[in-house]
């Protein structure tokens, strides 16, 4: 692929605008709450789009197109089963505690509900995980642009890190959220023509069905047994592993996404944040998965070969170079660049918040002035970007290290939802139960991985193993937390108001019109989601 001056002009316009947004927001960053949580004054439609965009990184866009090319419509389970139900749950059931408790972060909620050690465990693993994810993002971006455009790896890493640093340093979370919303529209405008053109060329839905392997066009029909579908998974693994443990574990407990809802202007806006996000989320498969399938249907499979190996991640770049003339190519590349950069910014802003509130303020220098913590947040932003650059270079040297790190962190995340579920909905749950249950759940995930690695347990696919590992880790955490809780002393109820379901006043919206109530939005989302599952069953 070769870019011309118009493409560079479009990329330059985007960079100029994101930096301009940072400079414009600089004067609004007066307190630490402004910097870390946008002063809690963002309207729901913006936090909603940021909520979805924080998850719509370039790795997700390219990865889902790749998965579409490899597995077909089965990939849609990551959306219609593996995201929407959890997004509804976090909005309707969990947001009253997150937002209502005035916790500034997910680890802080854990301290309010349980104790310091549970918060410490979550804060430290999250901070390390987030900053490394940011580095992986940077590394992947540099590698992709080197491969498709021949850009220098060093220049890509440094220039994009500088742009991200400047706008997050100046405008904090607001800058990050604004750029995520910009990125959302860029992805839509940058990828939509590609989606339409590829499906038209493939001969529409029926044309694709005729060219693709059997089983590619259905989501549910071939899930009776793992051998019957290209993913090697069955319906239980999809529903319990992906749809319940992994999906709820991510959408309901990952501070990167929850932080967007905490920046909302009131409880109603915070509850509607994930529900509004669910609407575009349901339609993203049409933007990325179906074009991935179309790419596999129309392109010679040899074009997916990179360095002698089949690389499905080439699906989207191949379509870009096939359809886009100079100019549109600039828009498509800007969309990818924007989603890489805002992915990194999202990680950096989540990192600086957890670092400042949950680690620095708690363990290093408590009791300082708000100005001090605002200053620390800015220092953490610079530190986060520098560690990301370092991590990107480590990944360049030892690519596999990052894969292993991600795997280790998945051990921590899988059982976390059990801790939250029990903590929020069973008032007896004790701090010791939560802490040891969480550790045991993570250890169970590690043990399961060890057993899989040594072939003591075998699966049809890596994905089937991942889903089963999540179910095993979650169950271990759940059971152990319950058992330890029954043998330890619970906290008095007077300390749990606003933190657990039975002791929290539920927000009522009877004074609002039906259209403005979160429950109405949730019903609309459920109906559309079930309809999509039914149509593509």
């Amino acid at each position, binding site marked *: 692929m070769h870019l011309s001056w118009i493409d560079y002009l479009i990329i330059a*316009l985007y960079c100029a605008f994101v930096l301009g947004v940072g400079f414009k927001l600089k004067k609004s960053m007066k307190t630490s709450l402004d910097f870390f949580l946008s002063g809690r004054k*963002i309207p729901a439609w*913006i936090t909603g789009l940021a909520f979805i965009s924080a998850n719509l990184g370039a790795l997700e866009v390219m990865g889902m197109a790749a998965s579409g090319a490899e597995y077909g419509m089965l990939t849609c389970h990551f959306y219609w089963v593996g995201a929407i139900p959890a997004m509804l749950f976090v909005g309707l059931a969990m947001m009253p505690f997150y937002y209502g408790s005035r916790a500034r972060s997910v680890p802080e909620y854990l301290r309010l509900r349980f104790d310091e050690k549970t918060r410490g465990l979550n804060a430290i693993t999250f901070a390390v995980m987030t900053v490394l994810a940011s580095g992986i993002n940077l590394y992947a971006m540099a590698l992709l642009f080197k491969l498709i455009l021949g850009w220098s790896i060093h220049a890509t890493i440094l220039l994009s890190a500088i742009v991200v640093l400047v706008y997050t340093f100046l405008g904090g979370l607001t800058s990050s959220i604004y750029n995520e919303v910009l990125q959302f529209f860029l992805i839509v405008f940058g990828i939509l023509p590609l989606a339409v053109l590829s499906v038209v060329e493939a001969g529409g839905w029926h044309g694709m069905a005729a060219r693709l392997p059997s089983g590619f066009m259905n989501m549910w029909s071939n899930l009776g047994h793992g051998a019957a579908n290209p993913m090697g998974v069955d319906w239980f693994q999809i529903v319990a592993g992906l749809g319940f443990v992994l999906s709820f574990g991510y959408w309901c407990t990952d501070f990167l996404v929850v932080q967007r809802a905490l920046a909302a202007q009131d409880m109603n806006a915070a509850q509607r944040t994930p529900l509004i996000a669910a609407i575009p989320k349901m339609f993203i498969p049409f933007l990325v998965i179906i074009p991935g399938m179309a790419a596999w249907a129309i392109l010679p499979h040899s074009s997916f070969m990179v360095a002698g190996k089949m690389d499905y991640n080439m699906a989207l770049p191949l379509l870009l170079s096939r359809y886009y003339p100079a100019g549109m190519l600039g828009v498509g590349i800007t969309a990818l660049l924007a989603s890489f950069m805002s992915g990194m910014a999202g990680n950096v802003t989540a990192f600086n918040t957890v670092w400042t509130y949950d680690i620095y303020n708690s363990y290093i220098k408590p009791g300082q002035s708000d100005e001090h913590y605002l200053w620390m947040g800015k220092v953490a932003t610079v530190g986060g970007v520098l560690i990301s650059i370092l991590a990107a270079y480590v990944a360049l040297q030892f690519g596999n290290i990052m894969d292993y790190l991600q795997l280790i962190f998945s051990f921590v995340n899988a059982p976390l939802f059990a801790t939250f579920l029990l903590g929020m909905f069973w008032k007896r749950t004790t701090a010791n139960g939560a802490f040891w249950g969480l550790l045991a759940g993570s250890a169970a995930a590690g043990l399961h991985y060890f057993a899989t690695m040594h072939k003591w347990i075998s699966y049809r696919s890596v994905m089937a193993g991942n889903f089963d590992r999540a179910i095993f880790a979650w169950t271990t955490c759940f059971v152990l937390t319950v058992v330890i809780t029954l043998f330890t002393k619970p906290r008095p109820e007077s300390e749990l108001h606003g933190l657990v379901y039975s002791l929290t006043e539920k927000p009522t919206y009877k004074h609002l019109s039906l259209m403005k109530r979160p429950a109405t939005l949730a019903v609309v989302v459920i109906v559309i989601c079930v309809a999509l599952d039914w149509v593509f069953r």
Partner: protein
Amino acid sequence: MSERMDLDIRWPIGLLFAAMGASLAIFGAFFTSSQKVWRLWMDLDLWWGVAMLVFGLFMIWGATRTSRHR
């Protein structure tokens, strides 16, 4: 809606899409005659540029309407 925001997000979105759309449409109209892609039944740069420009102007219109009501 966005009364408490320091910078109405529709301004940067609107201005960016208007600038990108206008650049793309002008390029499509005057510079790409030799680059037309055979698969397209239209000049993608020109028409998609117009679509982006219209979206950008719509966002700017929304932002100015709100700021006038303040």
